[in-house]
């Protein structure tokens, strides 16, 4: 681990936790869910930063999202709250909000080349996040159906 990465981890991970906590309050999350969702956000950012050593830009987003989704599915079952509550807040440090802003800034200022480049990159990040969420939640669903089916047969 380089010194630069350690510095990023020390500043970024607590900041990601704080950012999720703030958003959790704005989005009206209550009690334990608020804290656990914020921990999920810190976890995602940790994976994102650690993956910088071996993975490319989009793969880092994908890996972090897979980690968050697994965490969210587990927490949703332990705490008996819908997965969405965890997913929405924990994913916030990763979602390409800044990307949309920069894309539309280039659009408004008439810089077509940068508009297209940033726009496609933003869509790709959003796609990477979606591609990270869907397989995990589909597998969980499949497992649930499988268990229900087995119970029905027995």
């Amino acid at each position, binding site marked *: 681990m380089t010194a630069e990465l350690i510095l990023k981890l020390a500043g970024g991970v607590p*900041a990601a936790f*704080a950012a999720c*906590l703030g958003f959790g*309050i704005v989005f009206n999350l209550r009690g334990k*869910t608020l804290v656990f969702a914020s921990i999920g956000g810190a976890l995602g950012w940790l994976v994102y930063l650690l993956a910088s050593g071996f993975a490319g830009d989009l793969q880092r987003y994908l890996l972090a999202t897979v980690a968050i989704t697994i965490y969210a599915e587990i927490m949703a079952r332990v705490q008996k709250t819908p997965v969405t509550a965890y997913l929405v807040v924990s994913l916030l440090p990763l*979602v390409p*909000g800044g990307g949309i*802003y920069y894309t539309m800034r280039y659009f408004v200022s008439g810089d077509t080349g940068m508009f297209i480049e940033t726009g496609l990159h*933003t869509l790709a990040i959003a796609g990477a996040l979606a591609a990270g969420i*869907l397989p995990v939640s589909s597998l969980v669903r499949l497992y649930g159906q499988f268990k229900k089916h087995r119970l029905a047969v027995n």
Partner: protein
Amino acid sequence: MISEQENLLALSLNIGRGLLENGAETYRVEESIGRIMTAYGMEQAEVFAIPTCIIASVSRDGQTLTRVERITQRRTNLDRISRLNNLSREICDRKYSTSVIKAELNKIMSQQAYPFWLQTAGFVLVAAAFTIMFGGDFRAALAAALCGLVTKPVIELLQRYQTNVFFANIIGGAVIAAVALAASRLGLSGQVDLIIIGTLMNLVPGVAITNSMRDIIAGDLVAGLTKLTEALIIGTAIAIGTGFTFSIVGYLL
């Protein structure tokens, strides 16, 4: 068909409306309404939901009931989604009567969100934390916190008067850029770009664009495109807002 079933359809659509207005995914709305109607003995329940509309049609003994709900306002209240979700599950399990459903629904919908000062604190925390995450120093985070403190009441005021989303975000973007530029003029911090983008994280539709891609990949094409359009419109509004401030300041100085 007896009015009991009409009542039930209306109530389940009200639950769907509550879910959608507080930021639930469209597939969750479709599933909740469909499950409730099937649990109460409907042979067929077809539900179609996009962020702006719910259409549900149920049939039994050759007769069909249909209802449409238009959704015009949306914000994010995750606690309410969670409670509505539990309610719809309980309804399916315990087959509540319509009066019980109505009472429970009213209870959930009248539940207050966090007080305004706490929401402002959350807004400020988001601004400061993202500024640090993007590489800002302590002084930049402080400036972003100040920026958030000024912006939140403005946004709240615009929402209270039910201004449209486009206009509210133009103003929001303009105010954020103005405060950030003022903070740098006063020598608080030179990292203007980081302060602006950190505070803007409160407004930008990052969740919307991610959910839209998720919907599109999962096959809910119309819902996904609706959300994508909304995200782009909000992004444009914020960009116009900040651009407006930059050009005025550039002209004056």
